[in-house]
């Protein structure tokens, strides 16, 4: 099955700085989604970008998608301590069946 692979896997930044993480995948996709997981909690959906979109914004989040390189990036601007979490990308393959495949995730620590 297809899996997103985030890079880097651990990021430590100061509050107010921007955090960028990347995700690569291997097969054709219908859409790509980013999720956040706080320690000891379930995953929460952040943003979805369709395969025919190149960039999408939601509040302080900016997601890009390059289907030719099979990669995506998530940018969190003006980070806050509350952004400390693990971030996962998930790919929804073009053959459907609601089959989200997740990668390992990026641990982001925002230092106040």
């Amino acid at each position: 099955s297809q899996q997103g692979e985030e890079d880097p896997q651990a990021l430590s930044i100061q509050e107010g700085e921007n955090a960028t993480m990347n995700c690569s995948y291997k097969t054709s996709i219908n859409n790509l989604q980013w999720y956040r997981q706080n320690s000891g909690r379930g995953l929460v959906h952040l943003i979805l970008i369709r395969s025919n979109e190149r960039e999408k914004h939601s509040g302080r989040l900016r997601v890009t998608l390059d289907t030719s390189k099979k990669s995506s990036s998530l940018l969190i601007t003006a980070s806050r301590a509350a952004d400390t979490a693990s971030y996962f990308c998930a790919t929804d393959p073009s053959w459907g069946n609601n089959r989200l495949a997740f990668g390992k995730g990026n641990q982001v620590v925002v230092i106040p």
Partner: protein
Amino acid sequence: DTAVSQTPKYLVTQMGNDKSIKCEQNLGHDTMYWYKQDSKKFLKIMFSYNNKELIINETVPNRFSPKSPDKAHLNLHINSLELGDSAVYFCASSREGAYAEAFFGQGTRLTVV
């Protein structure tokens, strides 16, 4: 109101035992899932149920069996538990079709001793 709820939150049990994890969603979604998250936080899909039919069954040991009494519930039964089954198990649900986001439960941390 909790959208996707699973119980118990923690489960400690001995090898060889049989256990169940329950999951309920009140979102009216047609599709429910079980994911396993290992100690390295890698999240792997185990099962997916759509309208009470299993549509995905990854390479999961047959000791694991999903049971869906109705559209709002998808329980996970595990027989003859092994040490390697220790992980966090997440239930999730989504509406059917493309561009659907998944809603996750809080997770069940299973520890097999």
